[in-house]
């Protein structure tokens, strides 16, 4: 059942940190503050921490499953449900990752259209973007990881730039703490979870990790650091915006950049948005890679043929989404699927796996 990957195509365990963090840390960070503050108000930072804890638990469950079968998601499904059902589930996951790719690209294009180029054609930009994605994936999983690595390391300076808002920050905004009901805060956590998803791609690239036991701590560290970054950003945002004003900004992170002023540069959001290209690219690459990888595992089609085809489907899908509403609908849909997948399906799958393991053990024993 286990999948063998040549040693020179595998990645070091600590690179898992970058892949996991990369998938969590994407387009969502530009606008999550408003969404979580909608229900939890300025107690929403507690929601982020709760969401973070939930992610840690799910991550633990994922590792538990993977260790049981020593393979990837397909092996788990085959282990629990048998071959035919696992194929149906696999098809669903191909679609899910395709949708994820489309969402990521389309949302980014929308931001560029709104903030920088109103007349940017979605088709042409997505075309070039997807060509680069295909080029990355053709380099193998190591290249995908490499882009994830640079996608985190190079734009890291951006985090420090948020400190420019400190002179205008009113930390009193956060008081009083625990002003909202538990259910509101939990609802905020649910909304937050949409932006921290993506770590489940671990289920697919797990066989590509060299020393899988060691990678655990790195994956958890990644989740922890993402949570911390989100908390840091949320607190700065809440201190910067009065609560009512925050609800009027779809992308508060971008609005915050506007305040940055240096002798040679103003309106930092332009640089920020351009920079985000480097952050989005690995996201889309990992998602599309996962999609093609599942296809390979299910039907043993070469990734060299599936990747361009899948990319082409993405291209058409992105170009067909015209309005803000459609984009919103899509990202909500993907978020919902991801939410139920991660917080309901995978824990159940873990239980199923453990039961299956017991049953099989008994069969062998008797």
């Amino acid at each position, binding site marked *: 059942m286990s999948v063998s990957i040549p040693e020179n195509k595998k990645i070091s365990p600590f690179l898992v940190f970058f892949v996991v963090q990369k998938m969590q840390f994407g387009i969502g960070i530009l606008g999550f503050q408003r969404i979580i503050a909608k229900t939890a108000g300025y107690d929403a930072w507690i929601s982020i921490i709760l969401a973070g804890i939930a992610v840690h638990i799910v991550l633990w469950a994922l590792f538990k499953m993977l260790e049981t079968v020593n393979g990837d998601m397909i092996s788990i499904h085959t282990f629990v449900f048998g071959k035919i059902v696992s194929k149906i589930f696999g098809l669903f996951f191909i679609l899910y990752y395709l949708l994820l790719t489309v969402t990521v690209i389309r949302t980014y294009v929308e931001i560029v259209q709104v903030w*920088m180029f109103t007349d940017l054609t979605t088709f042409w930009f997505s075309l070039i973007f997807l060509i*680069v994605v295909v080029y990355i994936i053709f380099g193998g999983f190591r290249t995908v990881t490499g882009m994830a690595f640079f996608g985190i390391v190079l734009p890291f300076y951006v985090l420090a730039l948020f400190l420019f808002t400190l002179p205008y920050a009113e930390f009193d905004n956060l008081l009083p703490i625990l002003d909202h009901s538990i259910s509101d805060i939990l609802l905020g956590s649910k909304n937050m979870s949409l932006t921290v998803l993506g770590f489940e791609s671990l289920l697919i690239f797990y066989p590509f990790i060299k020393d899988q036991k060691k990678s655990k701590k790195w994956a958890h560290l990644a989740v922890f650091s993402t949570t911390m970054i989100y908390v840091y950003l949320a607190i700065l945002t809440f201190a910067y915006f009065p609560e009512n004003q925050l609800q009027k900004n779809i992308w508060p992170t971008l609005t915050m950049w506007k305040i940055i002023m240096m002798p040679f*540069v103003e309106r930092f959001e332009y*640089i920020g948005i351009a920079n985000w290209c480097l952050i989005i690219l690995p996201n889309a690459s990992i998602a599309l890679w996962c999609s093609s990888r599942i296809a390979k595992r299910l039907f043993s089609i070469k990734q060299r043929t599936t990747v361009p085809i899948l990319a082409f489907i993405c291209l058409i899908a992105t170009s067909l989404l015209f309005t803000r509403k459609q984009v919103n609908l899509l990202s909500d849909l993907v978020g919902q699927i991801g939410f139920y997948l991660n917080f309901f399906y995978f824990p159940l799958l873990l239980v199923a796996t453990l039961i299956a393991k017991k049953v099989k053990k008994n069969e062998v024993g008797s």
Partner: protein
Amino acid sequence: MKIPFKKKNTEKEALEKVLSKSNDYKNIHFTNEKTKVEFYLTFIASLTDEKIIHKEALPYLLHGELYNLDDVPELITIAETEISTNPKDIELKLFNGYVLVQVVGNEEQLCFFAAQREVGRSIGVPEVEFSVIGPKEAFVESMKQNLNLVRKRIPVKELVIEELTVGKISKTKVAIIYLEEITNQENINTVRQRLQDIDIDGVTDSSFIVQIISDNQNSPFPQLLDTERPDRVTASIIEGKVAIIVDGSPHALIGPTTLVELFSSFEDYFLNWIVSSFFRLIRLFAVTFSILVTPIYVATLSYHYELIPRDLLSALVASRRAIPFPPILEALFLELTIELLREAGARLPTKVGQTIGIVGGIVIGTASVEAGLTSNVLLIIIALAALASFTTPVYRMGNTIRLLRFPFLLFAELWGLVGIVLSFCIMLTHLIRLTSLGRPYLEPLYPPRRQDMKDALIRLSFKNQAKRPVFLRSKHPSRLDERDAKQKQDIDE
């Protein structure tokens, strides 16, 4: 000239048929005075040194006690002699500057002695990789000399020099040099295999080899380091790399290499680590600046002028007010001018080249600003970018850097800053995918290896360089004997 050989020696006959058309082919008949033995000397005059033949060989052959061919090596005072019966050796040896001796009546036995004429310039000063301090020797065109330069710096038995012949017609000698106990066997095999697989008629320089055996021939980035400094080659070999020296080329090749190594100058190792780290960072900045500054100018002025603070913007606008072209044309015009100047300077003799530089740099620059074709701000930017691009210590890399800015410019014109980042991503992906002799090119940046960072963007002190680079997968990862590693002492002990 009478042909002395009968049908037996068809190989030589066939050779002679072609060779007799050339004037420098000599086949001379002699008779020994004492023993009256008749013999022939055959050689290519342009490849052999007559002095050696006349002083070291002929007197003994003519007046010594020569009875048969076996006496020849004992009579003459040349160490490199060889007796063979294989007629195929004739062509090989003759064209490597050997003289063939044949005794009449015993034509099947062949005796060769070496009498190569050594022509070529003497060892000079490195010109491409000049350094203020450090050794001033540079490789020359003769492989013998070059090997000597390397060998005398590594006087150990582990230093292996393998020789191959490349090129169907040119028969160029290529040497692979490595340290037996240190260099990774896989790297050596890769180099040997690729050299053996070369299928080409002529090789006249190591740059042919580097282009043919590169991992990705469609990449603008050089994937092997070429250097004219014997000291650099030596250091690399000791580090665990493989060097290739090609006969007739004053540039040795070193591999596997990495991107950061192509931005390091060998002078970095002559300076104190703090100073050299500073220089490396300056160079890194220079390269980034050189690639990105013109595209950023085009992007901001075409699309995002809001980025520029008001005071600075007014200065920029003032300098551009009278200019009829969009920023991209303006930038392309000046970039092309600089490229023309560089190309003209490179093709012309040094003294004329200097004049061209002055004429081009000052006259064209000032005139185009005065004529209102370009803004003076852009002129400053482009001149600085050109200056910055020349700080790259490896010439090949410098060319790549100069080329890279054009795609960036086009993308900047297309989608502004987003375009620049997108083209940067393409470049980054390309670099991640690139390998040098199968080893990752971007190492130690990606895959990130902390240990190799000691000699990458900055260079730490020699005390911290006790380990060989990880990516070389050396058989001996440690440069020192483990037991010599000293323990840190506490204060006052």
